[in-house]
């Protein structure tokens, strides 16, 4: 296993609610590990605590409990942020600066020297499709262009970890695709990407692992394949049988298309699955393959969040 780039242990954040108001628990006992080279997605409904977690990692807010490290350094220290690029959900660059000047300024605040700032600015503006707008003032940029500039800013200095908070917000479909390609390119070049998004289809397309936050608590995490695996649901392919065939076990439905029919099986345990498959064979079905049932990330997200809310 690669070394952890982000490691949070029982992280918590409580905001005081102000005079005579109840405190707000934005993050509760949140533990998470992101390994080097991963594209990790953090999902959750609005107000789940996603941005709070990112802000805590970057030292913008202070956690009230637990601990965390970024690239092996305790969060809150400047050293933990040196090899980290960040695109906030809401960001506003000074309108009087040109794109090149804005990149130069933020790279300067990161401590990069002048020659590297200049060459990096030109290279990255080209990478995000803003090369011809390099000397245009930021105040003339559209929201999508501002987002691309924010991405270029996050990539200055060749960071080991890039944290993107809703990177496709306000970007048109073509721009979204370009940002997805950029994330894939980053991943291929070994950069760890931490993606915070509510666009589940995007997370499903680009992320290797994801975690789901609800009401400040971690309610699910795993690889995209694990998360999209429907629990207790299986699919078996085999020879078709008549719909009304006696002996087809309860909990099994099927599409009787030739040459292979798909049998959808609901089984809560491996023993139950084995028994159901045995009944299918007894009913005259020749089985070709058995796989776990699939669901979209969106279905998984809705089900996991609903289960968590029902448990509360």
């Amino acid at each position, binding site marked *: 296993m690669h070394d952890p780039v982000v490691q949070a242990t029982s992280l918590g954040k409580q905001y005081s609610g102000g005079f005579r108001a109840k405190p707000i628990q934005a993050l509760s006992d949140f533990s998470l590990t992101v390994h080097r080279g991963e594209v990790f997605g953090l999902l959750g409904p609005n107000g789940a605590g996603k941005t709070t977690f990112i802000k805590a990692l*970057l*030292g*913008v807010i202070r956690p009230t409990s637990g601990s965390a490290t970024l690239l092996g350094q305790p969060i809150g220290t400047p050293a933990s942020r040196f090899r980290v690029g960040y695109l906030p959900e809401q960001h*506003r660059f000074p309108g009087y600066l040109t794109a090149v000047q804005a990149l130069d*300024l933020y790279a300067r*605040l*990161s401590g*990069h020297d002048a020659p590297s700032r200049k060459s990096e600015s030109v290279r990255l503006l080209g990478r995000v499709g803003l090369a011809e707008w390099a000397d245009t003032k930021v105040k003339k940029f559209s929201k999508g262009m501002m987002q691309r500039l924010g991405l270029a800013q996050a990539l200055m200095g060749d960071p080991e970890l890039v944290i993107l908070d809703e990177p496709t917000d306000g970007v048109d479909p073509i721009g979204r695709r370009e940002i997805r390609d950029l994330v894939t390119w980053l991943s291929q070049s070994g950069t760890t990407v931490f993606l915070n998004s509510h666009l589940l289809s995007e997370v499903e397309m680009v992320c290797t692992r994801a975690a789901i936050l609800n009401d400040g608590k971690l309610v699910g995490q795993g690889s995209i394949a694990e998360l999209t695996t429907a629990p207790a649901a299986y699919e078996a392919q085999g020879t078709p049988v008549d719909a009304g065939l006696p002996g087809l076990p309860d909990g099994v439905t099927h599409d009787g298309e030739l040459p292979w029919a798909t049998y959808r099986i609901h089984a809560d345990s491996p023993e139950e699955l084995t028994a159901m498959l045995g009944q299918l064979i007894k009913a005259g079905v020749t089985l070709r393959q058995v796989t776990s049932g699939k669901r979209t990330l969106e279905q998984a997200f809705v089900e996991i969040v609903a289960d968590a809310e029902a448990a509360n």
Partner: protein
Amino acid sequence: MIASRPAIQFSGSLQLTFRELWSTYVTLGLFVVSTICWLFLTFAMNLDVVEGSVAALRIFGFESTPTDHIRDPETGEWMSQSMGLDKLVVGIQSFVFGASYFLGTLLGIFAAAPLTASLVTESRIGLLLSKPLSRHRFLAGHVLGVFATVLLLSTYLVLSVWLVLSLKTGIWVPSFLLAIPIITLMFGVMYSVVLLVVVITGSSGFALVTSYGLIFISFILAAQEQILTQLITPGKEIFLGLYYLLPNFIEAVPFAVQLVEGDPVQNWVPITSSIVFGAVAFFGAFQWFSRKDF
């Protein structure tokens, strides 16, 4: 020579502040007004000096004769005589100092408050604090940028006026140059209030009201000798407490004029209590900024 990372980061924070201040046009406005001031003294004002006294003063060609009203030592009656050239120079310099002290501070605070408040808005501060520099260093760069701008502007005005007047009249009053640190210092004291309020509340409007309010209160504090005679305990103690605790922006003027005119200073309290107030406010602002959740 390769600059160290902290030096580069600090220069970034400074650069951000300079650019922001320049973009507000208040800085440009103060620069233009200063330029007009010394150009006026250079080209529009002409002096005829006879035996060390101003025989005639012409402004845009219109002539007037500056006079002094003095008491005749023998008869005790008031009489007019031509103003001494040195007195005219000191008078003009005092006027320039007073105007730049009040207008410079009020306009400077007016420009700096929204600038500092915009820095701590959610859409900007998150990205700035995600950079690998400490909060103290970032804020120090910002404060130093504001101070440096005020220092540059006041130096430009005071130095140019001093040079023009000295070259035209041959009377050099070096103590006038003390106006530069005094203006910068008292601006700093009032800016410390703006910084503290903005860091706590994020509101530039509230910061302006508070700092202008303190300037207004300093008018009352300046009349402490008259007011104290009217007060009884515990009002007297409360007033005196406020006098020593709050910045004495108005009472610092006579102190400054005495320094600028080269006279002995009668009362150091207004300036020392103001400096202590400013230092405490800056300390509070830095502490609050370093701990605040944005």
